[in-house]
């Protein structure tokens, strides 16, 4: 699954991205001079422990938090200052907690139609039905409210909503960490299928090296707002990480029972 769509054109280019919170002496850099680029069609992972700034990078790309960068380009367009309405047709995000990410008082159908209404998509209803099919949800669910759905179903709705605008890039913010283990695998496989079908590029944040091994082509390791190293996943899985922090991270996840060695069998099916 990995090498088919990989191209050499960078679709997201980030150079020296800085996000700081607070002002004056209290200012703290959550993301401190991060540079990397994501190639079209690949899955790029961002790993690191909690608070290392990985989710903040996604929020900075989408403009949810203010940031400064020498370069911040998405599909060749400079988006470091302003993002037009068009930007959101290209880039969509899937959030960590699917219950939080859905409007609590809107039906599934309304959640799906909202992006189409905002962007004035002409064939909205057809698209919404297709989106539900794409994420494997029965059409009968469309008049339900989020609280009537299971966690996995909610995340599928969130993914379906992200697909409504037919984006090129999906930003995935720990899309499975709020779900149970069996459901995690379903959602990850769904994401892989969608990527193949729609030629999506994924930028995925996770703290789970197992997920990285399963999904990603390349990954960047982060520690307290800085990028420690960027390496292909094959190298990571085969113990080729050079930085001590990366090795520590792998060791920690092995101790937790997610040995990359056993994962390497799981990865490349």
């Amino acid at each position: 699954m990995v090498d088919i769509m990989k191209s050499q054109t960078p679709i997201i280019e980030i150079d020296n991205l800085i996000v700081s919170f607070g002002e004056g002496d209290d200012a703290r850099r959550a993301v401190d001079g991060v540079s990397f680029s994501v190639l079209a069609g690949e899955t790029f992972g961002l790993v690191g422990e909690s608070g290392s700034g990985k989710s903040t990078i996604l929020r900075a790309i989408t403009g949810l938090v203010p940031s400064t960068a020498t370069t911040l380009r998405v599909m060749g367009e400079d988006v470091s200052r302003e993002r037009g309405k068009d930007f959101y047709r290209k880039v969509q995000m899937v959030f960590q907690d699917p219950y939080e990410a859905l409007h609590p008082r809107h039906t599934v159908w309304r959640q799906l139609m909202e992006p189409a209404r905002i962007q004035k998509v002409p064939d909205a209803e057809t698209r919404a039905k297709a989106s539900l099919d794409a994420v494997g949800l029965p059409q009968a669910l469309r008049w339900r409210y989020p609280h009537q759905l299971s966690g996995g179903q909610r995340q599928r709705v969130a993914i379906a909503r992200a697909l409504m605008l037919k984006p090129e890039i999906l930003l995935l913010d720990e899309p499975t960490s709020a779900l149970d283990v069996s459901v995690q695998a379903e959602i990850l496989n769904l994401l892989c299928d969608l990527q193949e079908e729609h030629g999506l590029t994924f930028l995925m944040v996770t703290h789970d090296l197992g997920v990285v091994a399963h999904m990603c082509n390349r990954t960047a390791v982060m520690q307290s707002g800085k990028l420690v190293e960027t390496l292909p996943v094959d190298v990571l899985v085969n113990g080729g990480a050079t930085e001590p922090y990366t090795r520590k991270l792998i060791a920690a996840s092995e101790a937790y029972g997610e040995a990359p060695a056993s994962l390497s069998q799981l990865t490349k099916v």
Partner: protein
Amino acid sequence: MTTNSKGLKAWLTAEDTESPTQAAIQNIWMIWRRFADNPLGLLGLGIILLLVFAAIFVPWIATYSPFEQNLQSALRPPGGAHLLGTDELGRDIFSRILWGSRITLSIIVIVSIIVAPIGMLVGCFAGYYGGWLDTILMRITELFLSFPSLILALAFVAALGPSLENAVIAIALTQWPPIARLARAESLSLRHRDHISAVRLMGASNLRIVLSHIVPLCIPSVVVRITLNMAGIILTAAGLGFLGLGAQPPTPEWGAMVSTGRRFMLDSWWVVSMPGIAILTVSLAFNLAGDALRDALDPRQE
């Protein structure tokens, strides 16, 4: 869809909803079920419905005209031809209370209609936008909040001249700031929630986010707050009436009735007590219903 009650029940609780209307009705049904679990809330709702019923059908229920004087039967105790007695001019208190319910209800409705949208818009915009808009709007709100509401209402009525319309305007002026504060607090907590971020990532304008995503989520708590405030509105209106700054005689407004009756309180207790009991009952009913509504609308119970 079947029309018998069993079919209706199944339709209301069906897992697989077939239409958006059904989904919406099911939602209302769930809220009603939670509301109905609270007997005191039902009692409150019952009293409010009775009040509304009375206000609509007064001409057919009232036994006398509210203005008709009959000095020969002045200050008659309750019983006989006059169910709740008569006042110092021989007017039937029962009929006057019934006609007064129209005044009370219209005050409540008009004040709520003025107050809810103003408070909600001010609060939601201040909370969502933050920055200088928040500062300006909230300082204005605090200006109104810094006076006790009855004093502020008194000052306005004194300036505008005593009448029922001015009393309504004065009460509305004192009632919107708490709503604005509540709505601001709600939208402050909502604006960084992921589902609002998600709408921003669809490219929605700020105006759209506030009006179609933040405001609807504030409505339940504002409705509850206004229901609870209705007791306060009734009491303020009665207070203004009592002080002679609200409805003018011979309008059968409950507060004004208490006020004129206090001269005869020792000999003829019913002149003061009957409208007083009416004020008490209705205020209590709104409080009970408001409490039950808050529990029923609380999304945390879902």
